[in-house]
């Protein structure tokens, strides 16, 4: 019954937040709700890592190690972001950029957003997987459009239209898959269970290669839009830069991983029928393209949050390359990279939130001497930038090294070489912007000093993960990741 | 025991003979120019005079200035202990080879240059700068020439080179002669003689070696000039050793040594005459013409090497 509760708690919290009166009360409810949600989710993860895949409501919910990894990300980032939200929203209230109604809406949609993402990790039926992903789009679109600004509106619109279209294309893929399943196995099995992951993730299942191949193309393009593969990623920087900062953290730290999870699941299923060699080049191609696309935009970027968004595109590319490389090592590396990136990127986005709120601008050119102005956020941002570009002793170094190693072992040296080159270039570009913002003597305005406890302490959690996982990954975590990789390899019989 | 004594004698001879050679060159130059010129022994009188004079030391200078003459003399003396003059072996041949020799000279130059700056006089600094400049251009040519000279023996160990060359007999290869010419040019440059430098002038525009020691007087000056002439003899001797090393005493017995001494005297005289001829027949070069001369030496020695390799 745990999954059901994990879904209901955030929905209820959202509803109460919407109904409740008074900011303080809302905040309390919000904090309580998100804490409970994360606790439940982590509990799920714990059970899965202990007992393996578990199902609930018959076959309706299914949580396997693969989903558990993303579930853990949602729990951690979601909790951090919700803590951060309190400080952020208070500040916006003081500034007058948000009013009480919007605050209510914010908390309402925030929890709904969490719920939809949790659903993505827990539903068994792959059709519902699609429904859940579409739901995340709609819900988060409301959050992106929270501010009463033309830009916010524009971002939300682009987000909705592009992702809506993409998802619709993906639906075509789902339908084809289902159709093929019905044709081949319909009379043998119950039609309703045909789209279940638990049923389809089975190497012995052979559907019609032609259909599934076509279906996978639609799925890749459609879900790829949501994941943010170049050149379908253009909604991403807008949405991420216009949304309230905690939401940006969720978007690029969690939502994209959810989409990636869905894509991986479909790829696994498709892999049974059409084999790996049809799929791997697509993943690697999409990944490399995303990495190379991101570089120029980061190099000549002026907007801080948009720069981070493009770096997210790059990292989704890295993950895609890792998935395309495949093999137990490749998948493990991909999942580790997912986790580490989620931590580092949410850290960076929240730090960026502090910067923008402190300086009152997202233009990097106007930010100077941040190390002095924000004695905590400044160094943290610097660490985040170094971490996100895969420098040790931070966690992404380990995972990116693993990706590269797996790539060479898996016979993709050129892909890895290109990837490494891209990463190095992007490091240069990001460091250029970061050092211009961080170092140097600050101007007299704004006066030095952090915004407050609520906007600094939450950063400690992801920071801890970024630093600790760089040197030591607890066996429990690596065990879970190995399980997940095993699920993927077990699926992808090559 | 005996040969150690003789080798010591060798050292003493160099130190004592050095001013004589200087005087001899001055004299021959004067005669060639149709003057009577100073007496051959004049340098000795000069040195004695300087030694007894009180010294005037610049207020601006530091202990570097005071120490330099001793360091220079010491380094030159150490060098003298390495070079065989009339015997095949030298006193301290085990301490080092050609490279050490060159670097001992460099050490002396190093201190002279610093002393030149130390007084704060711009002549001194200028001279120091030029000194280092010329030497740094001379060094590559010098080393390649040494390589060419050491090539037949296959070692940079001076005594062995001498021994090997003495056995070899009169060389016929063109390489040998190119090497000799190159080395001669370098010796002139290192000894600070026309056309590279003019030891007899104190015009700030022309002087190189005289610049740094301009401020010196008394004992210090004496030591510096003495070591300059010792260095000159050493370089001449080196030229003789590497180019025509015949007549050096192979063993440490009286007659051989006497013969060696005689040959040595002849060699010095010959070189001295040649040098003075060159000095009176050429004019001093502009400073920035010097690199070409040294470059020529380098090219020559490289040709010499190539020829040596191809034979």
């Amino acid at each position, binding site marked *: 019954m745990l999954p059901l509760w994990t879904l209901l708690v955030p929905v209820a919290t959202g509803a109460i937040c919407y109904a409740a009166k008074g900011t303080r009360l809302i905040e309390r409810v919000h904090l309580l709700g998100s804490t409970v949600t994360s606790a439940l989710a982590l509990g799920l993860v714990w059970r899965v890592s202990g007992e393996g895949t578990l199902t609930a409501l018959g076959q309706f919910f299914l949580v396997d190690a693969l989903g558990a990894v993303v579930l853990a990300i949602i729990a951690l980032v979601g909790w951090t972001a919700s803590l951060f939200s309190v400080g952020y929203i208070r500040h916006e209230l003081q500034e007058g950029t948000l009013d009480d109604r919007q605050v209510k809406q914010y908390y309402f949609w925030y929890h709904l957003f969490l719920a939809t993402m949790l659903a993505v990790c827990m539903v068994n039926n792959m*059709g519902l997987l699609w429904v859940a992903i579409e739901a995340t789009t709609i819900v988060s679109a409301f959050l992106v459009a929270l501010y009463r600004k033309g830009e916010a509106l524009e971002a939300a619109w682009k987000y909705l*239209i592009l992702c809506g279209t993409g998802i619709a294309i993906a639906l075509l893929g789902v339908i084809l898959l*289902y*159709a093929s399943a019905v044709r081949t196995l*319909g009379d043998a099995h119950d039609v309703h269970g045909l789209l279940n992951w638990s049923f389809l993730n089975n190497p012995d299942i052979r559907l019609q290669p*032609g259909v599934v191949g076509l279906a996978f193309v639609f799925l890749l393009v459609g879900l790829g839009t949501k994941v943010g593969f170049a050149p379908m990623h253009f909604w991403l920087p807008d949405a991420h830069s216009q949304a309230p900062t905690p939401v940006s953290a969720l978007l690029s730290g969690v939502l994209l991983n959810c989409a990636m999870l869905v894509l991986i699941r479909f790829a696994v299923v498709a892999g049974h029928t059409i084999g790996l060699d049809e799929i791997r080049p697509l993943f690697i191609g999409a990944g490399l393209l995303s990495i190379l696309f991101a570089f120029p935009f980061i190099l000549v970027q002026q907007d801080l949050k948009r720069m981070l968004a493009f770096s997210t595109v790059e990292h989704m590319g890295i993950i895609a390359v890792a998935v395309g490389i495949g093999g137990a090592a490749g998948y493990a590396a991909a999942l580790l990279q997912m986790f580490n990136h989620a931590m580092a990127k949410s850290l960076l986005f929240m730090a960026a939130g502090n910067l923008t709120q402190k300086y009152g601008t997202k233009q990097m050119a106007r930010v100077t001497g941040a190390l002095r102005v924000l004695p905590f956020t400044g160094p943290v941002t610097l660490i985040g930038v170094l971490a996100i570009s895969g420098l040790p002793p931070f966690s992404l170094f380990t995972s990116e090294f693993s990706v590269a190693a797996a790539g060479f072992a898996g016979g993709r040296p050129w892909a890895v070489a290109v990837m490494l080159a891209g990463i190095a270039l992007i490091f240069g570009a990001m460091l250029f912007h970061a050092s211009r913002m961080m170092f140097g003597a600050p101007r007299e305005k704004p006066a030095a000093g952090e915004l407050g406890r609520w906007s600094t302490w939450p950063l400690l959690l992801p920071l801890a993960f970024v630093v600790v996982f760089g040197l030591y990954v607890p066996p429990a975590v690596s065990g879970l990741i190995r399980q997940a990789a095993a699920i993927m390899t077990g699926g992808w019989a090559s | 025991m005996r040969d150690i004594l003789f080798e010591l004698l060798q050292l003493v001879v160099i130190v004592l003979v050095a001013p004589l050679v200087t005087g001899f060159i001055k004299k021959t130059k004067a005669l060639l120019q149709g003057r009577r010129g100073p007496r051959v022994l004049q340098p000795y009188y000069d040195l004695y005079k300087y030694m007894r004079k009180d010294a005037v030391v610049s207020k601006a200078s530091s202990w570097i200035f005071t120490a330099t003459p001793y360091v220079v003399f010491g380094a030159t003396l150490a060098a003298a202990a390495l070079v065989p003059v009339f015997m095949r072996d030298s006193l301290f041949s085990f301490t080092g080879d050609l490279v050490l020799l060159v670097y001992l000279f460099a050490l002396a130059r190093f201190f002279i240059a610093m002393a030149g700056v130390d007084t704060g006089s711009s002549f001194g600094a200028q001279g120091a700068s030029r000194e280092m400049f010329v030497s740094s251009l001379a060094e590559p040519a010098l080393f390649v020439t040494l390589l060419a000279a050491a090539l037949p023996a296959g070692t940079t160990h001076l005594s062995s080179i001498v021994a090997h060359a003495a056995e070899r007999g009169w060389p016929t290869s063109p390489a040998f002669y190119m090497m000799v010419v190159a080395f001669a040019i370098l010796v002139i440059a290192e000894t600070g003689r026309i056309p590279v430098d003019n030891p007899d002038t104190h015009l700030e525009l022309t002087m190189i070696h005289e610049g740094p020691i301009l401020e010196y007087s008394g004992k210090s000056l004496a030591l510096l000039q003495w070591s300059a002439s010792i260095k000159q003899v050493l370089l001449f001797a080196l030229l003789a050793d590497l180019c025509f090393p015949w007549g050096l005493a192979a063993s440490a017995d009286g007659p051989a040594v006497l013969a060696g001494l005689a040959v040595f005297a002849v060699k010095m005289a010959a070189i001295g005459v040649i040098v003075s001829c060159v000095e009176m027949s050429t004019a001093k070069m502009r400073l920035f013409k010097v690199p070409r001369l040294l470059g020529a030496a380098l090219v020559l020695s490289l040709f010499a090497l190539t020829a040596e390799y191809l034979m």
Partner: protein
Amino acid sequence: MMLTATSVILVISALLLVWVKSIMSSIKILALQSLFLGIACLALGAQTGSAEVYVMAVLTILVKAILIPYILAATMRKINIRREAEKYIGRGVSLLLASGLVVFNYVVTERLDFMLLGSEIQTLPHAVSMLLIGLFVMITHKKAIMQGIGLIVIENGLFLLALSTALGMPFIVEIGIFLDVLVSVILISILSYRMDQTFRSISTDWLRKLKG
């Protein structure tokens, strides 16, 4: 057979959508299209006699043929739009291009052997071409609301495909899809309303601030 006929009609209506000028009339066309779909669904229900298909037919007619057009129209009235639908390219050209897309897609789908999927699957090319036309409409029109309409056209095509291949997706999935479509249409109308409030227009020309 009947489904194929329907699908042809749908494609034609979609092409018509490319042709018409006024937004209101395109909404009407959309409603009609959805109605056709509902009817076809009913017929299929009659053929197979499965309750789920009936329910879906009713839902289609209620949601897609009545509710959604109503919402859109209401929004239009609130916005009381002044000018007609503006496009990047003229009607003739766009019609030409759209038909070109359709042809391309027929060529493509020709090359895949769908005999495995059985005869009804002939609707696949039509579905795909509706998808392409929908995209085309979204691309060529400047009015924000038209992009919403394009989205629904795509949805209709897909629904048709689902119907023809496997009597629709599993029931619960279908319900979910309906819900998503409905909510997204509501969102679209809200956003276009706010657009009108902010820019005094719903032309996407105003949505060009976020570049680079």
